[in-house]
């Protein structure tokens, strides 16, 4: 009896110690091999990686910033609140994003992935360099509503950040905005999604089998969709009007950047990677399901002066799709889901 309780106490103590060790081990995450995955089925990246080479410290700093509400005026909202890892860093179930004080934006938060291959960012392509993405949501009055200069001040006063900046950018005497932006790029640039079943299929790797339905969908896609959703990034980086509206008033798209009349209603062709996870769809977030997004091309295309000519051939609006073609397309689009990407703990909130 006495022995028994003695053993129990020891076992309990051991258990606690082990749990403690386990916790400690988890906290001590190893990022030493962090690198940017350049898949063989992608073209060469646009971003100049050599101007800002990724390091474990820079990546970890960028990630901490991405998950830290300190970037918003009242410390209420982080980048990661609108860009959630399990939905490929999009904002699931939010037509338009909800920012500081619950204020509504006017656009849907897209996935944050494969940024180094993009020529410009945001639906209108208003920011052509990855390094300068973060300033936009920080300053946006309905997102974080904070001045980037003030963010830098807050980071300087913070108990942890100064040491993290010194580790990431050795030799600089003080924290500054360019370092913050470079850290952001190191983290966001590493968010590469290229391990979907489709990728394994095109790279002829293990796990790369597609069903007959998916293969048929791929064939339809090549014929009917890939003019705009081209290459294995599934975008040609251009701005187009795919017929969502017949008049554009609330959001003029690329025109707001270029002031060219022909750009009214044109938006950046989005990548379709992880599209199964990024509902709702389109710049306005008004299309809720993949089926409805595909159906849009078949029966929902609206005419307007800037409608893309590919969606009005021989005077006929849209892209005719049979029921089976639509099913196959949806099945194919789901092969672009990358579980490795959304489960990669290195990309998730650090402890």
């Amino acid at each position, binding site marked *: 009896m006495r022995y028994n309780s003695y053993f129990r106490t020891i076992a309990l103590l051991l258990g606690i110690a082990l749990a403690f060790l386990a916790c400690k081990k988890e906290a001590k995450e190893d990022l030493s091999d962090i690198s940017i995955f350049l898949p063989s089925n992608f073209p060469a990246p646009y971003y100049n990686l050599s101007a800002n080479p990724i390091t474990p410290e820079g990546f970890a700093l960028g990630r901490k910033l991405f998950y830290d509400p300190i970037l918003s005026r009242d410390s209420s909202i982080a980048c990661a609140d609108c860009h959630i890892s399990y939905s490929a860093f999009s904002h699931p179930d939010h037509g338009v994003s909800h920012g500081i004080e619950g204020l509504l934006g006017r656009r849907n938060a897209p996935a944050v992935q494969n940024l180094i291959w993009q020529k410009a960012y945001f639906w209108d392509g208003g920011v052509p*360099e990855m390094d300068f993405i973060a300033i936009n949501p*920080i300053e946006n009055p309905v997102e974080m509503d904070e001045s980037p*200069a003030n963010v830098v001040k807050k980071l300087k006063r913070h108990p942890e950040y100064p040491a993290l900046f010194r580790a990431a950018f050795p030799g600089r005497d003080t924290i500054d905005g360019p370092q*913050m932006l470079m850290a952001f790029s190191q983290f966001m640039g590493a968010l590469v999604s290229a391990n979907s079943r489709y990728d394994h299929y095109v790279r002829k790797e293990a796990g790369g089998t597609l069903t007959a339905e998916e293969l048929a969908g791929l064939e339809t896609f090549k014929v009917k969709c890939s003019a705009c959703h081209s290459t294995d990034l599934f975008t040609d*980086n251009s701005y187009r009007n795919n017929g969502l509206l017949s008049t554009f008033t609330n959001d003029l798209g690329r025109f707001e950047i270029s002031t060219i009349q022909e750009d009214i209603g044109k938006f950046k062709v989005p990548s379709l990677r992880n599209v199964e996870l990024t509902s709702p769809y389109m710049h306005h977030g008004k299309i809720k399901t993949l089926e409805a997004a595909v159906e849009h091309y078949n029966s929902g295309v609206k005419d307007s002066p800037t409608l893309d000519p590919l969606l009005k051939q021989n005077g006929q609006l849209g892209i005719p799709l049979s029921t089976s073609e639509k099913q196959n397309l949806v099945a194919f689009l789901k092969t672009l889901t990358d579980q490795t990407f959304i489960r990669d703990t290195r990309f998730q909130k650090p402890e």
Partner: protein
Amino acid sequence: MKNFIFKTLFAFSAFALTLTACKKEDEGLSGTQSVIIEMDNRAGDDELVFGKNYKTANGDTVNFSLFNYYVSNFVLVKSDGSEYTVPKDECYFLVKHEDAASREIELKGIPAGDYKAVRFIIGVDSLKSIAPAGERTGVLDPTGAGAGMYWSWNAGYIFVKVEGTSPQAPINAGAGERIFQYHTGLFGGKDSPTLNNLKTVNLSTGSELIEVRSNHEASTVHTYVNILEMFTSPTNINVATNPLSHAGAFSKTVANNYADMFTLDHVHNHN
């Protein structure tokens, strides 16, 4: 005899040559010196003072509260037509009217010589406008010394930023006041075009040269910057109908107007 004359002449000219060479040394014609471009902000014939009323060409009364601009990519043209380009990493300046020190632009390390013109860009050139974050330090850091001179949603620098009030301007819903705002930027876009409002300014010194000497104090190029030029030539701006201009099509009119707001008043050399 002939020989002797030649020899003497030769010796003499050699002497003279060394003398001029020495004189050149003495006159500081080797080495470098700074040149100061003094930006004297004005409103017509008057000194620009914030809070004072001025009249535009259109007849509007304007009262300024902010006048900031980037000038960059300075080139100095020698009297023989050859050019000296200020190195890239030292050629960006942000002038803020309320910061007197920023109105004195020091171009450092200019090779000694006589210069007849200064050329520069109003704004930040397109290459720098798309450079990586690590190359946007100092006044080009939108989170630091360049704060307020950058558009985050149509990424790029605001080249010229003018704000104020005018009784002719309509009441602005946001501000609750009769304000005007002319924020002009746009460098032409990276892969897809936007407006290009970059303007090159050419200031000729006329008969007086900028005499850069390593053994004299820096010469000063006294430049008038007439803010009222932004409201006229080629197009008169009517504050009532166009009180605000940002990244829209109207910014082209504003930029075309301010392109000639810089004039060279005089050069001040020290000897």
